[in-house]
């Protein structure tokens, strides 16, 4: 039986080989060749010698800040949800997921309307006599856009882990003399680390490579790695090879940081994304 059953994984293994592994090999191939198809290391060395390191650093900083903000907002939120009635919990999760169904190109546009100097927020502030705050075209605006777009991806896994914690464990802790605060810090937090790690992955990865949000909310006055990669595939100086090299470095950077994260975290396979 058991032998036959792992046959079920084969379609997926074939699929992964064709559409996950093979494409990666193409990125590799393009990274180490030039326009004529000859092998070269120039694409990689070019990244090391110029401004690209700074672009990487900028993206890293922005993504890091956005991820931490998401975590700080999402963690208490998930905790509050997990202590609500079951029916309310699922409605709350729906409300968190719902913004994801809106096209992010449009919601980003709406943020523009909100944050501008003559935008909605400043107009409202004007009524109560607070003078216009400059928000649009700053890194802060871009981070706001990222947090908005990716917050649900942080809430979901954390919530699902917290909701999965057996209430009897918490009762037991209380019986043994834990205060509410102790329960939170000594029981819930250690048990929810796997959710936190999935959440960090799901927010950090898209925010480091985003390009639309930075263009619209950042005013195009600074460049992130997503913008740069995109420009080599559809910009003025199309260069698939260099674009592939940039993608490659970005990918390796992310894989390393995720590898570190995962080693640090528990085996998070036992818990799902959502309950």
């Amino acid at each position, binding site marked *: 039986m*058991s032998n036959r*059953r*792992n*046959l*079920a*994984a084969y*379609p*997926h293994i074939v*699929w992964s080989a064709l*559409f*996950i592994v093979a*494409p*990666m090999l*193409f990125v590799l191939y*393009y990274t180490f060749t030039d326009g004529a198809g000859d092998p070269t290391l120039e694409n990689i060395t070019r990244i090391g010698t110029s401004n690209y390191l700074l672009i990487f650093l900028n993206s890293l900083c922005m993504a890091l800040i956005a991820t931490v903000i998401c975590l700080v907002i999402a963690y*208490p*939120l998930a905790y*509050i949800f997990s202590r609500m009635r079951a*029916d309310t919990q*699922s409605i*709350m999760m*729906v*409300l*968190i*997921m719902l*913004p*994801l*169904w*809106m*096209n992010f*190109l*449009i*919601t980003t*546009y*709406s*943020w523009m*309307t*909100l944050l501008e100097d003559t935008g*909605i927020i400043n107009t409202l502030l004007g009524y109560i006599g607070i003078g216009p705050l400059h928000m649009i075209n700053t890194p802060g605006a871009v981070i706001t856009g990222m947090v908005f777009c990716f917050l649900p991806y942080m809430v979901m896994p954390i919530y699902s882990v917290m909701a999965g914690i057996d209430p009897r464990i918490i009762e037991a802790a209380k019986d043994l003399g834990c205060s509410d605060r102790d329960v939170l810090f000594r029981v819930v937090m250690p048990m929810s680390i796997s959710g936190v790690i999935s959440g960090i992955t*799901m927010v950090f*990865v898209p925010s480091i*490579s985003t*390009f*639309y949000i930075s263009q619209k909310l950042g005013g195009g006055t600074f460049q992130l790695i*997503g913008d740069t*990669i995109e420009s080599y*595939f559809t910009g003025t100086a199309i260069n*698939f090879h260099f*674009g*592939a090299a940039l*993608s490659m470095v*970005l*990918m390796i950077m*992310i894989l390393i940081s*995720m590898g570190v994260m995962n080693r640090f975290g528990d085996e998070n*396979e*036992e818990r*799902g994304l*959502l*309950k």
Partner: protein
Amino acid sequence: MKKLSKLYLAIVFIFLYSPIVVMILISFNAGESTAHMTGLSLRWYRQMLSDDITLNAFRNTLVLSSVSALVSTLLGTLASVGISRIRKRRIRNAVKNVTNLPMVNPDIVTGISLMLLFVFTAQALGRESALGFGSLLIAHITFSLPYVIMSVLPKINQLDRSVPEAAMDLGCTPMQSFFKVELPFISPGIVTGLIMAFTLSFDDFVISNFTSGASFETLTIHIYAMIKKSVKPGIYALSTLIFIVVMTLILVYNLLSSRDRRER
């Protein structure tokens, strides 16, 4: 404490919904602008309903996301069942890591790598049209798969192995035991995976942008192409309609399922 957490929830929801409120407001704009309200009207709704190109792009998006969600859920569920039964830990971890690649890979890299693959295959086969519905579908299934597996696999792992064994001892064939015992247990995970897959592919822009072709345009690509000319409130009207439909659907779903639960 209760009050504090209510206040906190309110703030977060205001944050999450303010751009949507803006979107809904502007969809009723009488003027042409997406920045400046000049009055209220339904003109953009009327216009949207006659906008065949946008509606077609929307329909394409729906078809693409449903097909890709269904296929990836099927594949992913099968895969989870299989993966959970791979005995060798090293192989199991290898399969799992490869599966997770599209999730830890930036969208832009996934999109580009798939595009490079399609371009190359098309050239090798001498076919000129590599990008279209097929390539988009493959791409969407590929990036949805890890999310499905991530939702289903834990459910399978939670299931006590002795339960299906007991079923078989009581005379079930392995097939019966799977369909009658295991499947109902893991079905919440499957539904979550399906919804996740649909949501992701519905809203995807980056990967679609690199893998779409001449015959098939999704809504996000269509909107992105308006970059040179202005974005008109018509798109906001369509999004508002989507918002209302989804909101109603999900709330009805929730009401029904909580009633289901109570009846049980």
